[in-house]
């Protein structure tokens, strides 16, 4: 077991542990496809814990292999056998849906560093569930809003045919004021987009919106750039993140994407975070790393105010979100999802490395639409 025990031996004997130790179970994707995201969340999270200097947090990290059944099994083990207080780490919505409802029903806190499925924001919300990243629709809504703002009036939109893809297109359409030239669902895991690109070329759209996470986005962007079609492209940050950009290369240059965080965000917490992350891991932090970092800091801020064994007090402390988020202002809405500003970024090349810079604000203090359905 890959226990990362931060509690030192001296502390374990612990003469003066005023408050009980907090045991955190992190279930995230560390192997197989998509492992890069989990590794970033983990590294961001652990960096914050390390910087806090606290020795009363124990983190148990396990790899879910991006398989829902493994994730459920790990959650069972952490709850039944390790007796953790807080769970976190899951990257993918489908894994979150498999783990979160039963974990919160068993009285554990769950802090989501990435996935934000709509069910958990709306009718399926839970007092012990906090999302520190975004509700899944947020970045898509921002993209729709930004597309309208810069004057696009007719979009070709595409996403894989699975719930997150369907939510993505719904999210984009929600705040986009123009027309939709065509709405296309691709296969999940599809690697060749020649057919879709041909349809884009033939359409009268003035812009393209796509949500194709992971390798799908890499394939799409490379093929799109090579096709000679020159309609401007917008996407959510996922396809333009630090980890993935190097694989896309030139094809991504100049593409607009929406994100609640960027490494050039001008606040002290962020500058310190970027600097220390590079120093610690010798690579630029990604969106996911920033989310992991914020998640850990949220947890630490709550620990400073309340004991985890007093659930109500601890929950109230979490709700306050009294920490310096690397994305600037951050607070929770009534459904424990972020209310935050979402920016538009552009892909640039900087010292031979592909990265993003902020070019505008897409949505100010944006909350998700599901909060109204949530009765806690």
């Amino acid at each position, binding site marked *: *077991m*890959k226990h990362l025990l931060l509690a030192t031996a001296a502390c374990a004997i612990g003469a003066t542990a005023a408050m009980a130790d907090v045991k955190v179970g992190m279930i995230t994707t*560390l*192997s197989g496809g998509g492992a890069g995201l989990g590794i970033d969340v983990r590294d961001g999270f652990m960096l914050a814990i390390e910087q806090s200097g606290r020795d009363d947090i124990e983190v148990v990290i396990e*790899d879910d292999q991006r*398989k*829902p*059944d493994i994730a*459920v*099994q790990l959650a*069972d*083990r952490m709850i*039944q*056998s390790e007796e953790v207080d807080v769970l976190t780490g899951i990257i993918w*919505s*489908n894994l979150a*849906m*498999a783990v979160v*409802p*039963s974990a919160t*029903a068993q009285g554990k806190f769950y802090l989501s560093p990435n996935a934000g*499925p709509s069910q958990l924001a709306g009718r399926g919300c839970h007092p012990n569930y906090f999302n520190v990243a975004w509700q899944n629709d947020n970045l898509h809504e921002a993209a729709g809003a930004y597309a309208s703002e810069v004057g696009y009036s007719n979009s070709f939109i595409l996403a*894989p*045919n*699975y*719930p*997150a893809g*369907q939510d993505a297109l719904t999210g984009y359409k929600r705040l986009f004021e123009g027309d939709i030239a065509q709405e296309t*669902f691709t*296969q*999940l895991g599809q690697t060749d987009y020649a057919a879709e690109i041909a349809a884009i070329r033939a359409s009268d759209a003035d812009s393209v919106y796509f949500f194709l996470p992971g390798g799908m986005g890499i394939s799409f962007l490379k093929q799109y750039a090579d096709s000679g079609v020159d309609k401007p492209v917008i996407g959510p940050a996922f396809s333009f993140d630090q980890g993935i950009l190097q694989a896309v290369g030139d094809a991504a240059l100049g593409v607009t994407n929406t994100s609640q965080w960027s490494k050039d965000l001008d606040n002290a917490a962020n500058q310190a975070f970027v600097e220390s992350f590079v120093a610690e891991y010798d690579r630029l932090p990604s969106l996911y790393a920033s989310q992991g970092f914020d998640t850990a800091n949220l947890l630490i801020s709550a620990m400073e105010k309340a004991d985890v064994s007093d659930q109500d007090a601890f929950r109230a402390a979490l709700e306050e979100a009294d920490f310096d988020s690397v994305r600037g202002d951050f607070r929770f809405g009534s459904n424990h999802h972020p209310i935050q500003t979402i920016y538009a970024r552009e892909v640039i090349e900087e010292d031979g490395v592909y990265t993003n810079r902020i070019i505008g604000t897409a949505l100010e203090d944006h909350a998700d639409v599901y909060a109204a359905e949530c009765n806690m």
Partner: protein
Amino acid sequence: MIPERLVTIGAVAGLLAVALGAWALGEIFTITLATRAAILALAATGLNIALGYGGLVSLGHAAFFGLGGYAMGILAFHAQSYTPLELGSLTIEGTKSMPVIWLVAVCVSALAAWVIGLLSLRTGGVYFIMITLAFGQMFYYFAISWSAYGGEDGLPIYLRNSFPGVDTLVPVQFFGLCFAALVLALLLSARLRSAPLGLALNAARQSPARVAAVGISPTRVKLVAFVISGAITGLAGALYADLNRFVSPAMFSWQLSGELIVLVILGGVGRLAGPVIGACLFVTLEHWLGGLTDFWHVWLGAILLGVVLFARGGIVGLLTGKAGPHV
């Protein structure tokens, strides 16, 4: 060397002892692991009928596992959302009752096994392997894009389904149910092996022409076995979904089909105890190796290669000192 009967009884009793021991010690998670092993053993027991007795190398058994899982998921989903399932003019109420869900899971997977078997048994050998694999993938892709039941996200069931007289939320009681299902399946498997159907199936694996020459259609025998096999694996799928309180397209994935074969081979192909021992070993390996290294699949692959190249009888073969049926 140990007689096979003793190995079988030992394996089943061992699994029970682990679960009961863990219960006595309050090690709830070990019970969960034992339950997982029992369910995987059940699925592999189903596969063993096709693979071990009939020599049908099915690389698509995840299709039945997934169908069983979705039978549970869909019925429970409609029950927990109080919306009936509309199939054309037919209206079906959802249910949270395990016996009903199991019946549906068994029937649906048997039906699918019949259709897939009918098509893939038109040919044999390597065609059979690829065709079962391809049909498994077809279900996988369909499940991913079928958004009504969660698609790729899968379908969570918030409360475990109910069984009369049992509190299924108590881990050891749910283990009891799964263990009982496993024992019943093993009894059925043993009965099948010694029944005329088993005799004919076993002979059809070795010499289809011989079986036809004595008035038994080898294709029909294999089809019947494939259907029974699929039905048992489907039941396991329904239980697995209940264990995780969650179904997803991952249950249809071809890696899972491959893992089911691995379970059977590790334990001993065509042996009654093979799937049980294989499943226990697999769960243990996954738990321990997975704890030692992120790259445990490399070592699993190495172990598997070793078994295939040097220990064809699997664990049961080593224990009994007898080579099993040649598949």
